[in-house]
């Protein structure tokens, strides 16, 4: 059936189409460096999407919860075995991605008789100093990109491009934690709105189109956010350089998030 090369290429193409379809309902994830660490933010519906992997590593993901769990567990195992066999300083995001999880995801994607991972992930690694942070994004086909200041996960590449453009335009370098929280949440809203629009028109935004000026309107973004987060949770986690001890990860509580986010957002936090 797939013994002929062109049929295999066609099958991989179909698989890509199927996976793109699966992510349309997903919630975007934003990772942004701030003055003393890295902030990860998303809006989740029950299942958490942000996790601690190791002392200086955090994971954010979008996709099928079972696949995300599988990837998370693989990364956890890999990081702890590596940390024990070598040293905690040898557990780096680059090693985890390049020699660990990316080849596994790629193989699963190309083996057309097996199920692929319906997941996109971002692995944030806190550097020893500000400006040395690393953000690695892995797509469902195993391709990965490394960034420094910000990274996003969204349903499609055009939406991701718009979100990154917004983050770069809005975020001073480096932003404070309060600024980073507000910017990351607005970028998430921008991405979610673009995804929903693309879903409504049944054709994604063309690669050339960028967000119109109205998209940058904060009040419009907050209005969309208030509609979107009803019965959902704003999930936020930090890799905080100023935190004492070797483990730098901490989840931001709803109360703290309420204090960090802009007051005009209009969402009540418990």
């Amino acid at each position: 059936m797939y013994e002929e090369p062109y049929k295999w290429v066609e099958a991989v193409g179909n698989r890509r189409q199927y996976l793109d379809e699966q992510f349309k309902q997903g919630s975007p994830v934003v990772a942004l460096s701030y003055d003393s660490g890295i902030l990860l933010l998303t809006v989740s519906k029950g299942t958490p999407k942000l996790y601690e992997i190791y002392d200086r590593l955090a994971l954010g993901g979008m996709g099928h919860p079972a696949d995300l769990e599988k990837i998370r567990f693989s990364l956890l195992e890999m990081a702890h075995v590596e940390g024990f066999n070598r040293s905690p300083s040898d557990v780096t995001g680059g090693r985890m991605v390049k020699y660990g999880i990316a080849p596994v995801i790629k193989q699963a994607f190309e083996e057309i008789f097996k199920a692929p991972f319906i997941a996109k992930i971002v692995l944030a690694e806190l550097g020893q100093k500000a400006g040395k942070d690393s953000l690695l994004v892995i797509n469902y086909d195993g391709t990965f990109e490394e960034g420094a200041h910000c990274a996003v996960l969204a349903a499609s590449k055009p939406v991701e491009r718009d979100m990154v453009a917004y983050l770069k335009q809005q975020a001073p370098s480096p932003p404070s934690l309060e600024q980073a929280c507000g910017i990351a949440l607005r970028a998430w809203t921008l991405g979610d709105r673009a995804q929903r629009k693309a879903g409504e028109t049944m054709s994604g935004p063309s690669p050339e189109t960028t967000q119109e000026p109205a998209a940058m309107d904060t009040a419009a973004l907050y209005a969309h956010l208030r509609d979107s987060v009803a019965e959902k949770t704003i999930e936020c986690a930090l890799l905080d350089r100023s935190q004492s001890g070797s483990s730098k990860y901490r989840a931001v509580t709803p109360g703290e998030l309420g204090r960090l986010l802009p007051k005009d957002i209009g969402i009540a936090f418990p």
Partner: protein
Amino acid sequence: MTHIAMPERREGPVDPMPKQPGPSEEGGGPKRPDTGSPEKDNLLKRMRKVDPKQAERYRQRTGE
């Protein structure tokens, strides 16, 4: 007729007291290989460097 002149054979000096072959030079049979196994002291020293809280953190991170 061709004459081939062979060089005269000379005897070298002979050691009057030959050395006994050592255990490694003796062709007795296979020897135990030198595996270079880690010393126990070093292993214990390495184990002491492992953060004792790491196991607890692993359980916490995996959600156990």
